């Protein structure tokens, strides 16, 4: 199997999907926490 790439688009979608989901989830959680903190300050 030397030199043969095993697999195709499933790895592409997994890499993009997993990593961007992590980033998106972090952005959402941070925004919700920030909004809550701002509301508590006012």
């Amino acid at each position: 199997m030397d030199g043969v790439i095993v697999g195709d688009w499933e790895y592409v979608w997994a890499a993009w999907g997993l990593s961007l989901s992590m980033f998106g989830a972090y952005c959402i959680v941070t925004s919700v926490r920030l909004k809550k903190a701002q509301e508590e300050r006012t």
Partner: protein
Amino acid sequence: MSSRFAIEHIAGLLGLGLFAYGSYLGLAVAPPERFMGDVGRIFYVHVPTATVGLLLPAVACLIAVGSLVRDAGKWDAALEGAVEVSTLLIAMMLVQGSIWAKPTWGVYWDWDPRLTSSAILMASFIGVLALRTFIEDPMRRASWSAVATIIAFANVPIVYFSVRWWRTLHQDFTGGRDLEDTMGTAFAFNWFGLALMVTWVVTRRARLAWLTRPRAMAAEGAPAASDLVAGG
């Protein structure tokens, strides 16, 4: 809406737009990579994540120096944001790299110097975040976490140059001269897009740290600034 608030969101939205277009180019327009085929498209998200993920710790290191030489306050809040998002980016980089490694190397993980030093970098930034939860005194927390960030950053040049110093499994630096035009454009759009989105979220996370800091100080029994003024 304050102008700072508007600029922050304009930067974030611009970053999202650039990244969306770059992703479209990388996933749908650019030709398959000569040796890796479609699996090579992972690089359009992996390379921008890795470069921004190594640049942000450098920014965190500069903020840490600022926190040490200036009054901690907002510098410490900015440090918390930069360190936390750095940890996230390094984790994303490792996830993308591991998924790419399976079809190309045949394994998800190998103790290659680049991978090992990257894992140590992530662990050291998690350590900085953990340190912040252990220290109750805000001033001591600021100075200790600044020093810990500078120590953690020392690993970044090792991560970057590891492929040159120890020529093992991970490929060496790849120049952009051999790239087809669409490939280079996809990389550029995704890099600037991600950099802007990261700037947006670091700014927001730093503001969150700043807003929650006085409450934490109050919980620890430290006097609030207004009390100090009232007490003369």
